[in-house]
């Protein structure tokens, strides 16, 4: 079966393959989570990746409910899903949108991990488990979070022939 995706990321203007509109009621978090993880599983993502996608979506939705809508339970949230394939392989794009207050995307970040206290971890976890997580203001009202998860982790770009690799340029380097 083919999901009919083109070589580009296929989101700009195209209809999402799935789009869930839900009320900002925490009762519906598990439904949204199960939807995205089942879809990812069916598209052939490994179980770990499916769990990570569910976790990221759950954290992001909790944040919209708590911070965006101040726990109002009857406001709309949209979750759109597009599978796509690019030069790095198969991937899933998930976009979460709300009509909540707009905040500076730079202000959406977790606490310093060294400073142990309850809370302040969600955004860090989202960024850690997804390959991409970008917050932005929507045109008129509300925020948009664009998440990307790849089937195979994106390879770190190899140093080009003309530039010598800097010592310890990456945390994994043993040079």
């Amino acid at each position, binding site marked *: 079966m083919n999901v009919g995706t083109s070589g580009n990321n296929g989101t700009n203007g195209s209809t999402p393959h799935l789009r869930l509109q839900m009320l900002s009621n*925490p009762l519906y978090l598990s439904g949204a989570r199960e939807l995205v993880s089942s879809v990812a599983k069916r598209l052939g993502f490994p179980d770990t990746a499916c769990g990570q996608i569910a976790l990221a979506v759950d954290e992001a939705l909790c944040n919209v409910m708590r911070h965006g809508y101040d726990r109002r339970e009857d406001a709309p949230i949209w979750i759109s899903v597009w599978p796509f394939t690019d030069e790095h392989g198969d991937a899933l794009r998930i976009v979460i949108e709300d009509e909540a207050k707009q905040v500076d995307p730079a202000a959406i970040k977790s606490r310093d991990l060294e400073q142990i206290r309850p809370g302040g971890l969600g955004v860090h976890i989202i960024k850690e488990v997804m390959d991409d997580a970008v917050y932005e203001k929507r045109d008129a009202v509300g925020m948009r979070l664009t998440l990307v998860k790849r089937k195979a982790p994106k390879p770190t770009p190899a140093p080009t022939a003309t530039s010598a690799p800097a010592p310890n340029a990456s945390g994994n380097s043993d040079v």
Partner: protein
Amino acid sequence: MSDETLQVDVVEQAGAVLLAPQGELGYNEAPTLRQYLKQAHDKKPTRIVVDLANVSYMNTPGVATLVESLQISKRNRTRLILCGMNDKVRAIFEIARLNTVFEIMADRDSAMA
């Protein structure tokens, strides 16, 4: 419509309180675990064990509840031990760099020993 609440099994034994939440531990369930932990702390036990063996899913509200409990534990000089984490739950503690902050044991038997 009625909400499904978190079920938490409680065992008290020789100055230790063991709490075993069952099922999903997310935004909806974390406040219930928080109540159970508060009641456990009120007894000023020498040890509180949270057995996560039957927790199939956990996210940051659950983690935050446990961090708060760790802070109370330090004030009260109670030992707080987490045990029974599956790989998915363990991964969240690792990403949050909390795996070295909590005392974590393999299972209930070692945690209660």
